[in-house]
């Protein structure tokens, strides 16, 4: 018999799970051209986002400590649901434009969200794995959703092959972890971390597990799939993958590494043995992402490399393995989700049926064709570049602080160097939008729902930029609630 409080605690999961089933039925019953499934999934996602926000300060476990509903989980629930709801708004016109208006899209989206929420809530390796597979399989399908388009197919196959490879790492790592500790429970790891820390099999297993997830967060050298998949997948799917997908990758890493996080900040102890590994990945990702993005001519590809660089910045916070670091990563994740969603949303609006408007040169003179979209995109790009007073800057500041605090000033220095490099490619789009005259003078037709989506993201982002202390405070408080 499942206890009632467990069911209540896992309500967000159940709501999304139930919505998937209802959406399936709706899809069967109604005409495939009607947008009822879209409206239904959008409302379900918004409701769940609201629900998790309302229960932000709840704490506790459910289902034999296999899932946790403590603060951080609810925040992650909110991010992925909010992101998915915005993606639904982007998609309503976009999937008609690319002639793939099937209700399955929203069902797959909901299923992916369910997987992400499982990852976020999991305090047991098996749940992490179930969530990961649920999410990844939906992503493989979504990436290939333009099934008549060769690039989309390529993207799906690449993602599937490399994704399965990464899953292999994770499963193998889990096997070793179980062998070393006879348990899949993360709270158990936390309880016995002192003995497990000196167990080489446990460490090897941890390393394999972490490597598996660095595939998902797109960190160098496990980033190979990112540019092709981000470019080939439909833009709305890319928007979702690059934000919520990365959020869940980090959620899993934070959850798994939490036993190793030093609770008394600013002590140097054996707890930091993941530091060199994560710091190396971080340096490689930042520099590689920033440098390679310089030479891209496709805007989606450029943003793919930029997302690799951003994974690097967030890894700075994680490699500090401290409370401040994790809080910084969470702040960064929220900011990054908003900026990237906004940028990709605008690109999905601008993209034409025959895949025009994806080259960087196509943005020339956008400020006269569509002043509003150009202004929004400029704000998002400046924020991605990490300029104050936008939230992206505060995110960077928090992770840099955590690095310096833990004696890794050099990591912060590498971080600022790569920030300077990356300014150039973000500015390049702004230069084209504002300083150049384009040949194309056609006024952009903007679908209302997508514009609403961009607008919602923009407002959230402006609030976050103007009052970073509020978000920082929330994240700090719920960080204390977790465990």
């Amino acid at each position: 018999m499942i206890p009632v409080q467990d069911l209540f605690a896992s309500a967000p999961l159940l709501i999304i799970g139930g919505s998937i089933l209802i959406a399936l039925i709706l899809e069967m019953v109604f005409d495939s051209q009607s947008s009822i499934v879209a409206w239904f999934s959008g409302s379900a996602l918004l409701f769940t986002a609201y629900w998790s926000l309302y229960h932000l300060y709840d704490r506790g476990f459910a289902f034999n400590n296999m899932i946790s509903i403590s603060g951080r989980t609810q925040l992650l629930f909110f991010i992925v649901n909010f992101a998915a709801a915005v993606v639904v708004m982007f998609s309503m016109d976009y999937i008609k434009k690319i002639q793939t208006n099937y209700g399955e899209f929203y069902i797959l989206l909901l299923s992916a969200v369910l997987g992400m929420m499982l990852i976020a809530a999991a305090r047991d390796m098996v749940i992490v794995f179930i969530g990961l597979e649920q999410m990844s399989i939906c992503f493989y399908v979504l990436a290939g959703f333009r099934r008549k388009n060769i690039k989309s197919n390529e993207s799906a196959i690449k993602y599937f092959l490399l994704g399965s490879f990464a899953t292999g790492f994770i499963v193998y790592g889990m096997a070793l972890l179980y062998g070393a500790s006879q348990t899949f429970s993360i709270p158990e790891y936390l309880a016995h971390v002192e003995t497990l820390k000196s167990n080489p099999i446990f460490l090897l297993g941890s390393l394999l597990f972490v490597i598996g997830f660095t595939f998902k967060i797109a960190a160098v050298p496990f980033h190979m799939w990112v540019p092709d998949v981000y470019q080939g997948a439909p833009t709305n799917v890319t928007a979702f993958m690059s934000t919520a997908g990365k959020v869940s990758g980090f959620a899993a890493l934070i959850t798994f590494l939490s036993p190793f996080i030093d609770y008394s900040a600013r002590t140097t102890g054996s707890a930091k043995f993941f530091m060199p590994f994560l710091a190396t990945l971080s340096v490689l990702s930042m520099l590689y992402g920033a440098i390679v993005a310089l030479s891209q001519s496709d805007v989606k590809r450029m943003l793919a490399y930029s997302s690799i660089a951003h994974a690097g910045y967030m890894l700075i916070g994680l490699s500090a393995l401290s409370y401040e670091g994790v809080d910084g990563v969470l702040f960064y994740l929220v900011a990054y989700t908003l900026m990237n969603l906004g940028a990709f949303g605008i690109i999905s609006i601008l993209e034409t049926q025959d895949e025009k408007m994806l080259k960087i040169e196509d943005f020339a003179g956008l400020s006269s064709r569509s002043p509003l979209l150009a202004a929004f995109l400029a704000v998002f790009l400046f924020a991605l570049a990490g300029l104050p007073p936008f939230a992206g800057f505060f995110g960077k500041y928090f992770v840099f602080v955590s690095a310096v605090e833990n004696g890794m000033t050099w990591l912060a220095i590498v971080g600022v160097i790569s920030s300077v490099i990356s300014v150039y490619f973000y500015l390049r789009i702004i230069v084209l939008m504002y300083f150049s005259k384009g040949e194309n003078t056609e006024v952009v037709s903007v679908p209302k729902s997508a514009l609403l989506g961009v607008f919602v993201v923009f407002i959230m982002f402006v609030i976050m930029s103007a009052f970073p202390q509020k978000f920082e405070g929330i994240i700090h408080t719920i960080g204390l609630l977790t465990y």
Partner: protein
Amino acid sequence: MEQNLILLYTLFAPLVGAMLLLFLPKEKEGLIRAFGIGVSLITFFLSLAAWSMFDASKAEFQLQQQFLWLSRYNISFHIGADGLSMIMVLLTTFLTTLTLWTSWSGIAKKVKEFTFFMLILEVGMLGVFVSVDLFLFYVFWEAMLIPMYFIIGIWGGEQRIYASIKFFIYTMAGSLLMLVAIIWLFMYAYNDVHMYTSNINDLYKIGPKIPFEIQKWLFLAFTISFAIKVPLFPFHTWLPDAHVQAPTAGSVILAGVLLKMGTYGLLRFSIPLFPQSAHYFAPAISTLAVIGIIYGALVAMVQTDMKKLVAYSSVAHLGFVVLGIFALTPESVQGAIIQMVNHGLSTGALFILVGAIYERTHTREIDAYGGIAPIVPVYSTLLLIVSLSSIGLPGLNGFIGEFLILIGAFKSPVLNNWMFSIVAASGVIFAAVYLLWMYQRVVFGPVKNEGLRALKDVTAREFTIVALLLVFIVWIGVYPATFMKITEASTAKLIKETLTTLSIRY
């Protein structure tokens, strides 16, 4: 702590104005221009009100206003002004108003966007000067790049894209290294007093305690970032590009206020936070400053483009300011501060005059002119007075600043070498050479180009703007005490505390 809202109003008046501006219809350009000037004028009056409440006899920050911001790191939105901030605020609000007025004819396209960015830029500049919190300072310091980038990039000359990107990346590279130093300083402060603090008054007490080996690096990170902004030789290469490509309004603001942010940073942060390193590096930096004076003057001499000539003259003038700052005597620092104001007024006026003639003939080549004195007598007179003030003729403002800097540097116990003054003084002669030579080639001689005969003299608007600047140019030249006494107390405090830390007797 006494709270006073006046600086907050001054800081946010342009922001509110910019937001309201967004609701004005794009087509009504006259209305938008008038609105922009109105908002900047209100800001100017607010800053005058702040000045009236300001007590110049006190050295510490006044008119403070503080809100807790990022509570975890004890960062607050803390603004206030001492003498140095006050005079910079007045300069900023004054020049912004004049600049917006100047651009009535200079800016023909996208007037709404231009006014919007100018007002946002004003917020950024004022924020830099009134921040009492180091983190807040950094936020304004960086944020101000965005509007300036657009002003150069949208309304600039032919190579505006190159110039704007160079300006942006150059400045940002410097300031991001400063960010790491800032974080490092915060962490050191935390370990020292077991409390996060980013208030500069607290950091002033902690900075000098940092071991010299580390302090050196922090000093360099801060100072290089400021040196890029000043720009100190050899970090000046972005300046001619930015100046030449920027529209007149952009050049005036760039020369008048933005460059001062660099020297302001040196006075506010580099020296009092890291006095030992400042002492250690003072001869090296002063040498660079003197090289800048000579180099800027020599390069200005051979320019064929009037705007470029004025741009290089900025390098030379700012060299004087940096020399005065690092000489660390009351005279030289007071001279440096008044020279910061002078340069804003004189070079601003030069850019306005060059811009005015460019609007008529669409060329800035010196060779294209000649013999315009009888055609445009008022213009020629104004240009002469402004050039003489830039040269440093006694009785006009430039002389006061340069003279004080030179005597201060001559007897400076920190530099302890009078060669700096001797060599720098030759820069004054060079300044006379390049400016008077330009003046001669443009204004006197035979009329080279028949098209010039149709040249129209200054309009009433142009005349009023330059005349307003001239009022202050003469005022400072004749009776500088009005302005010097604003900064007197805070300069004395800075020198006294720095030299006490260094145990140098003065």
